[in-house]
């Protein structure tokens, strides 16, 4: 099995659909026969199925989100009312502001941004040079090192939860306790075999001639990495970066363990902690606000995120 990302696919618009070279007359031919689709009956069925799918998808995936966004703007009494109202009878957009104040969301947004931003920075700073060294400098025992890194991908994360926690509270050799420090998230995040593998696969496809030419011109490996390799690797860097931020933002169990101090916690940890005591409309408003950055990132970088998805998928 191989995790593959093709550089030419990432930048393109319809990167999920590989263009077919052979049999162009059958391109787009799928399960249902085109002849059947063209018949009057086929067309009717097609439009009915399409309409049903549209309604079903909207109800299943968008409506719950609509329910949350508007639910937050209902008054507490209206929220408890049976049957519930589809549209709020009285709009209370100020609930969002109240939730921000009461949960102290500003502080926790900042905490989460520090955690996610730091995780991104350290992953790039650690994993790019490592992948570059393994791909282009090919040191002795490089394959052994890569193998040892990839082995960690096969381990279920849960199996390492307790021993990693024990490591964090007393880091070997230096004997510091990283509990309540964002470094407890950052450092384990940097040991990311998936990043190294995906980056290495991308660097592998950069022609050696380009690297050799830079060396003949007198550029050292670091300069070559910075000036030649990184600029042409922007697509894969975007994929890795977005993945790093989204993963850090969504993570729950690890931050729950390493941030016992309420002042240091991330949004996910805080929201589940305050969930029981908060009035429902404030809680739902908080949930919506905490998700907004992720939704915004998705809308802005949909192409990179979906490319990263199929990059993580496995081809034979």
């Amino acid at each position, binding site marked *: 099995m191989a995790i593959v990302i093709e550089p030419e696919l990432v930048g393109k618009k319809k990167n999920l659909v590989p263009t077919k070279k052979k049999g162009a007359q059958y391109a787009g031919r799928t399960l249902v026969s085109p002849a059947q689709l063209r018949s009057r009956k086929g067309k009717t069925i097609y439009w009915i199925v399409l309409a049903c799918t549209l309604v079903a998808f909207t109800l299943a995936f968008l409506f719950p989100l609509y329910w949350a966004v508007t639910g937050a703007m209902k008054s507490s009494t209206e929220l408890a009312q049976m049957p519930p109202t589809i549209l709020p009878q009285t709009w209370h957009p100020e609930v969002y502001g109240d939730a921000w104040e009461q949960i102290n969301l500003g502080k926790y947004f900042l905490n989460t941004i520090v955690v996610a931003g730091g995780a991104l920075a350290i992953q790039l700073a650690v994993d790019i040079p490592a992948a570059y060294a393994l791909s282009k400098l090919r040191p002795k025992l490089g394959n052994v090192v890569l193998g040892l890194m990839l082995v960690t991908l096969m381990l*279920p994360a849960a199996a390492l939860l307790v021993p990693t926690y024990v490591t964090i509270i007393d880091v070997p050799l230096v004997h510091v306790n990283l509990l309540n420090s964002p470094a407890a998230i950052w450092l384990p995040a940097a040991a990311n075999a998936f990043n190294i593998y995906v980056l290495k696969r991308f660097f592998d496809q950069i022609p050696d001639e380009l690297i050799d030419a830079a060396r003949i011109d007198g550029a050292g490996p670091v300069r070559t990495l910075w000036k030649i390799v990184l600029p042409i690797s922007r697509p894969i860097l975007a994929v890795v970066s977005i993945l790093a931020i989204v993963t850090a933002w969504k993570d729950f169990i690890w931050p729950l363990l390493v941030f016992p101090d309420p002042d240091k916690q991330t949004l996910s940890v805080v929201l589940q902690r305050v969930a029981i005591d908060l009035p429902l409309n404030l809680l739902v408003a908080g949930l919506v606000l905490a998700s907004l950055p992720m939704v915004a990132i998705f809308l802005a970088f949909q192409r990179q995120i979906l490319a990263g998805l199929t990059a993580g998928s496995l081809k034979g």
Partner: protein
Amino acid sequence: MSSPKSSNVLQPARPAVTPRAGRPVASAQERKKTRLRRKLGENITAYGLLSAALICFALFSWYPIVKGIILSFQQVDFVSDPTWVGFDNFVRLWNDPLFGVAWRNTLLFTAFAIVFGFLVPFFTAVLLNELRHARAYFRLVVYLPVMLPPVVTALLWKWFYDPGPGLFNEAIGVVGLPGSAWLDSSSTAMISLVFVSTWANMGSTTLIYLAALQTIPGELYEAAELDGAGIWKRLRHVTFPQTRFVLLVLLLLQVVATMQVFTEPYIMTGGGPDDSTVTLLLLLYRYAFVYNDFGSASAMSLLLFIALGIFSAAYVRLTKSSD
């Protein structure tokens, strides 16, 4: 996909290195020496660039693997020094009635999650692949829940499930069906958690299947149709075999992931009602962070790891031999 070796074939040959004019050709021995020195230098630079990653992996990946095995055979409470206790931790787990319950619940969750989390995304992908309109919309909407933090999803669904003013019983009532106790009944709590995790995760599997479906050559369907195969036969004899590899790999990944379910039961049920949603990871969390018994928690991780390892090995074996 092309390995680095095969991709080199497609690229222009390496330019031949010619000694530069005006420079005396060095003796063979000297050339060997400079080449050695350069190789050494390159190795030093390479390991310099690798050093940060090696330290992070050593401290936070490789060391914990070893540490986990050691802890499984120790008693650790962070007050006194750890002591070796042999298989005591495993015996304690064996004697804990919740341990068996947790295995049963987790396997049940995995079984349900596979039925829903596998069949629903696959047939959704097959359906989407047939539709010629609104494709961007479908892809966008189905993936949207994947972007939500799992804590947000779990808390939202807890509200939707509320048998009082919850969304679901109201929606079901509109159609005229009786409501359900959802999370509040030990018979429906687990399946309710499966629905949440399917809703939250099906976007990624659906889109991966969709990408796999789009690589099936149209000729195959055309040929099958000419041979008189109807839709079901085409699905059975073209679609399944052509996406077999992706299906098998994702199935394995899903089993490994669902065996580690934690966030949904932790937030939505806390393991209840009547321990019906205590999963392995929830119990592991209790052992470590409620009972402060890190030894037993590590022993549990080790058992989970061994179980998943045996399962994965057997799975890979079986699916390979059936070729």
